[in-house]
């Protein structure tokens, strides 16, 4: 471990600036505390490990003694000592390349002038970074660059943020002897095809930072340097426009570019930011940290923050570019009420809206009973907001009818992991993937749905880790640039549990289990019972092949690989949970990890990839109807009493309704009032007909959202929501990391979401008093053992914290279940394969499964209101060429998609990604009505809907003018509801 002696130099930004002759010990740079994420050290740290134990090296740079970890470049070592050697092609997010030669230095005993970025620091080295000779060489290099560069610095978009300009200044370039008349690239044409950034080749210095960023950081390999010498230039794809190339618009190249060549259009339009605020992405469960670059209260750019421990300076097209929705003209910023949904909205004050809502809710409860109302919290809102909504339901409504949209995605994760490990959360950090030898990705599509983590996976795969993909569809990871799955087990939707059982069967059958860790760490009785169960021949891959479609030999090979290749990590998504046996599958996954000793250290684990930013948080915050914050059952007297005291109410000890149950009861007419914060159940929940019927039956639907979403069209009270830019709070990502969300602009509706909930609660007669979300977090911490030591102050210090964060683990817990499982001994659960009732028939001979794509997010309410729609303007149905041919369908044809639940129409995309008999679509656009098709089948334990398996028929539509009946109704209803808004 590195130490530093603060008495010598308390300044944390630098180190080791010791003049020779000083007696004090040299300073040692401690990357845990001393790395400044806003500084570019030129080359990456030799290890991402925050506490490297490796060897230290001492060298002298310009007379200063510097000690750095072995493997550090001379350029980085100097930067750590605050000696900033000029550089152009180097940046610390990329491996050193050594092409510009601006960073050259003189090293005692060596000939010539080596590039400091590619020269590793060595023990005893004596480096001189500046002398006349070096200065002259550098000036010559700059002269070459500038002779082929436009001199419009004053009006250039990069003015103020251009490394070329900076370097010209640093080396003291004063004139260009070659003149500017020679051959140059000044007329090269701009590529403005990407909606978010432009490529202006006339300013390119061919440093290849962009090319390397696309390869190393993003892993897409969309850019190349074509030709050589003077002719060499950067190009996307095969000399294509960016939009026509493989580019996924992650922006890594734009961020890496030292000049104006690749620039954000927002910066070109508006100029450089004048301040920035660190915050957290509001899209997916990766939870990337960003610098919101501001001009006044306007966001001009989102720059992924290098200090962010989830993303390490990378981002995807959503987080970086798709923030314009926050100020979109569709935002509703005034509260509105109406007596029935056949009436125009009336704009009112917050007070009036609160008292209207409260009196309706109270009236309903009087007539239909206490249980006739409830609320839904959002995985898109902050922990604090979610906590308040469940508190309002439990304390002010007086029941436990609170649920969250995580119900429809990851509720089986909570159930399954609690039953086996004892805690409802993933076991690892994202960094852990760097130590993984074999990854198994089940029912997840990280490069689309969790792109930044997908990039980190690809990086590790390029370093040689093995990959098993288990998915009905051929996702990008199966075969991409420099990444190829060792096994793609293309199972039939609905046979997950058969698959996972077969994996376990093989491991037992072939004696590959880790007997020692099972004996030491697991409940042996449960293991023996489970072993007897799983050894049965019915679980053998030879048997399961018959219905899962996975060839037995391939499955056996995959099982051997997972069990024997070293550190095995499982990453899974909604393809695991959204099934009638979602919970069984999660337990099956946990069994497999325990069986092979793949829990409790870096590189291994069971990792649910969460869809929305705060799925983990909304579950943690007690959004489930049977659990108080921290996953404690409401029937437990001790815990309930604690909350009763703190909240000064009596709580109902009975579990409440889950979303599905609420909707059923609403259709039945016994459930009449609902408060929905930041969710769109009319679009996102399955069996739309059923949902719409339920919503129409409500007497009081209160929707709090930033837009008039699909659900709000059925509402009686609309309360303006605030975007993540308009409030303080925290999100918790898939690795249990609690990260701050910071307000950068005033809420457009005047109040932040948490304030709206306070107002509603007060009107209901239950007053809550908080002056700031930090006080809400303090209350959460005081009532939730896993959050004991979490506070805004600590978050400001640490950047983020992974729960459990308590007296024993004040700095949080990156890896769980190290010494022992949270529940003590790991529990092997029996997971019998029970086929879903959703079966193919003559009438519905194919299976539909659903998913997400990169540029859109969830129901699309945010991303559809940005340029991201340039990539995905509509949902399409993917279908295998055989099935398409049978039906006379070609790509672009309008097709009808029908299930027992309903029918809709989409366009077809014929692709070999699909296997015959299986079709696939997304549900980012409401008018496509994917959920008209999905049924109300659900997971046996948690009621998580079975989105991933629906028996369907697909036919070509002859009259393309027609829409399905539902789509026609939808269009009419939408028109009517929008007209009610105009008044």
């Amino acid at each position: 471990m590195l130490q530093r002696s603060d008495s010598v130099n308390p300044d944390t930004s630098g180190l080791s600036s010791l003049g020779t002759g000083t007696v004090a010990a040299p300073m040692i740079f401690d990357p845990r505390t001393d790395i400044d994420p806003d500084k570019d050290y030129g080359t990456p740290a030799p290890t991402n490990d925050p506490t490297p134990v490796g060897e230290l090296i001492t060298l002298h740079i310009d007379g200063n003694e510097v000690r750095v970890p072995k493997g550090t470049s001379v350029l980085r070592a100097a930067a750590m000592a605050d000696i900033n050697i000029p550089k152009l092609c180097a940046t610390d997010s990329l491996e050193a390349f050594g092409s510009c030669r601006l960073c050259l230095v003189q090293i005692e005993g060596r000939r010539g002038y080596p590039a400091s970025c590619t020269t590793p620091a060595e023990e005893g080295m004596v480096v001189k970074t500046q002398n006349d000779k070096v200065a002259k060489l550098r000036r010559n290099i700059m002269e070459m660059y500038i002779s082929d560069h436009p001199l419009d610095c004053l009006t250039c978009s990069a003015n103020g943020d251009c490394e070329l300009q900076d370097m010209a200044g640093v080396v003291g370039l004063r004139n260009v002897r070659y003149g500017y008349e020679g051959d140059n690239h000044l007329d090269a044409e701009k590529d403005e095809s990407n909606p978010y950034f432009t490529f202006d080749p006339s300013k390119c210095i061919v440093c290849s930072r962009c090319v390397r960023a696309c390869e190393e950081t993003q892993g897409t390999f969309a850019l190349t340097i074509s030709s050589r010498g003077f002719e060499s230039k950067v190009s996307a794809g095969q000399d294509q426009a960016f939009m026509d190339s493989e580019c996924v618009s992650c922006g890594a190249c734009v961020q890496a570019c030292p000049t104006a060549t690749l620039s954000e259009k927002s910066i070109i339009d508006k100029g450089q930011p004048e301040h920035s605020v660190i915050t957290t992405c509001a899209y997916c469960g990766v939870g990337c940290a960003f610098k919101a670059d501001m001009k006044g209260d306007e966001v001009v750019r989102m720059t992924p923050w290098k200090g962010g421990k989830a993303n390490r300076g990378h981002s995807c097209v959503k987080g970086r570019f798709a923030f314009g929705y926050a100020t979109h003209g569709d935002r509703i910023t005034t509260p509105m009420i109406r007596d029935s949904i056949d009436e125009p909205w009336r704009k009112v004050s917050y007070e009036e809206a609160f008292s209207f809502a409260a009196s309706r809710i109270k009236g309903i409860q009087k007539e239909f009973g206490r249980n006739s109302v409830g609320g839904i919290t959002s995985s898109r809102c902050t922990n604090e907001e979610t906590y308040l909504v469940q508190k309002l339901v439990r304390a002010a409504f007086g029941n436990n009818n609170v649920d969250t949209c995580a119900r429809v995605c990851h509720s089986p994760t909570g159930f399954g992991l609690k039953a086996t490990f004892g805690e409802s959360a993933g076991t690892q950090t994202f960094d852990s993937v760097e130590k993984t030898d074999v990854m198994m990705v089940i029912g997840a599509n990280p490069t689309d749905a969790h792109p930044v983590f997908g990039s980190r996976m690809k990086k590790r795969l390029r370093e040689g880790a093995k990959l098993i993909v288990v998915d009905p569809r051929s996702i990008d990871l199966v075969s991409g640039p420099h990444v190829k799955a060792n096994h793609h087990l293309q199972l039939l939707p609905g046979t997950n549990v058969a698959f996972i059982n077969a994996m376990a069967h093989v491991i037992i059958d072939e004696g590959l289990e880790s007997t020692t860790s099972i004996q030491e760490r697991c409940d042996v009785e449960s293991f023996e019972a489970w072993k007897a169960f799983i050894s049965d021949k019915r679980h053998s891959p030879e048997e399961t092949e018959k219905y899962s479609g996975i060839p037995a030999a391939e499955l056996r090979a995959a099982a051997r690989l997972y069990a024997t290749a070293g550190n095995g990590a499982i990453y899974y998504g909604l393809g695991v949970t959204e099934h009638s046996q979602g919970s069984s599958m999660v337990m099956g996954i946990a069994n497999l990890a325990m069986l092979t000793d793949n829990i409790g250290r870096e590189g291994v684990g069971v990792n649910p990839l969460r869809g929305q930013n705060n799925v983990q948080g909304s579950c943690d915050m007690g959004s489930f109807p049977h659990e108080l914050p921290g996953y404690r059952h409401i029937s437990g007297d001790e815990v309930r009493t604690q909350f009763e005291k703190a909240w000064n109410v009596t709580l109902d000890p009975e579990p409440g309704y889950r979303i599905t149950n609420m909707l059923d009861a609403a259709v039945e007419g016994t459930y009449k009032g609902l408060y929905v914060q930041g969710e769109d159940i009319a679009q996102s929940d399955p069996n739309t007909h059923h949902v719409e019927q339920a919503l129409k039956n409500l007497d009081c639907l209160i929707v709090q959202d930033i837009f008039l979403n699909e659900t709000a069209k059925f509402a009686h009270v609309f309360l303006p929501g605030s975007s993540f830019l308009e409030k303080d709070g925290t999100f918790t990502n898939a690795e249990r990391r609690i990260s701050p969300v910071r307000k950068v602009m005033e809420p457009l509706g005047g109040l932040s979401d948490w304030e709206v909930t306070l107002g509603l609660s007060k009107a209901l007669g239950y007053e809550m008093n908080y002056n700031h979300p930090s006080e809400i977090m303090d209350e959460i911490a005081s009532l939730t053992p896993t959050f004991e030591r979490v506070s805004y102050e600590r978050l400001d210090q640490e950047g983020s914290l992974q729960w459990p964060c308590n007296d024993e683990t004040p700095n949080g817990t990156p890896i769980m279940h190290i010494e022992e499982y949270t529940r003590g001994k790991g529990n092997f659960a029996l997971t019998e394969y029970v086929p879903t009732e959703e079966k193919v028939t003559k009438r519905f001979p194919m299976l539909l499964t659903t998913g997400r794509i990169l540029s859109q997010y969830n129901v699309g309410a945010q991303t559809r209101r940005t340029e991201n729609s340039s990539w995905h303007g509509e949902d399409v149905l993917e279908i295998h060429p055989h099935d398409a041919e049978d039906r006379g369908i070609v790509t672009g044809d309008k097709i009808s998609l029908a299930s027992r639940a309903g029918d809709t129409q989409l366009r077809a995309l014929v692709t070999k990604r699909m296997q015959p008999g299986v079709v696939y679509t997304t549900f980012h656009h409401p008018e496509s009505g994917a959920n008209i098709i999905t049924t109300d089948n659900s997971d046996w334990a948690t009621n998580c809907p079975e989105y991933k398996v629906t028996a369907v028929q697909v036919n070509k539509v002859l009259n393309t003018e027609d829409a399905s009946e539902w789509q026609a109704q939808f269009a009419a209803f939408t028109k009517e509801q929008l007209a009610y808004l105009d008044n």
Partner: protein
Amino acid sequence: MSTNELSHLVKMANQIASNIGLGSTEDEAVDKVVNHISLFWARPMREKICANMQESANDLNPIATKALVQINAKL
């Protein structure tokens, strides 16, 4: 396809029974189902299904039926 609340509850009870019942004796299986439903179902759901046991008699599987008899007794 719009299932009503009762038929949905029956389906859920059957699903629970067929998923957590296995590998145990019938009594244990019934206990597990009772426990699961008590922990995760709202009271009105339990009341509804119990009040309509007759109507759903043919649709409920045996373990689920036995479990619901016990749940009814505790309501």
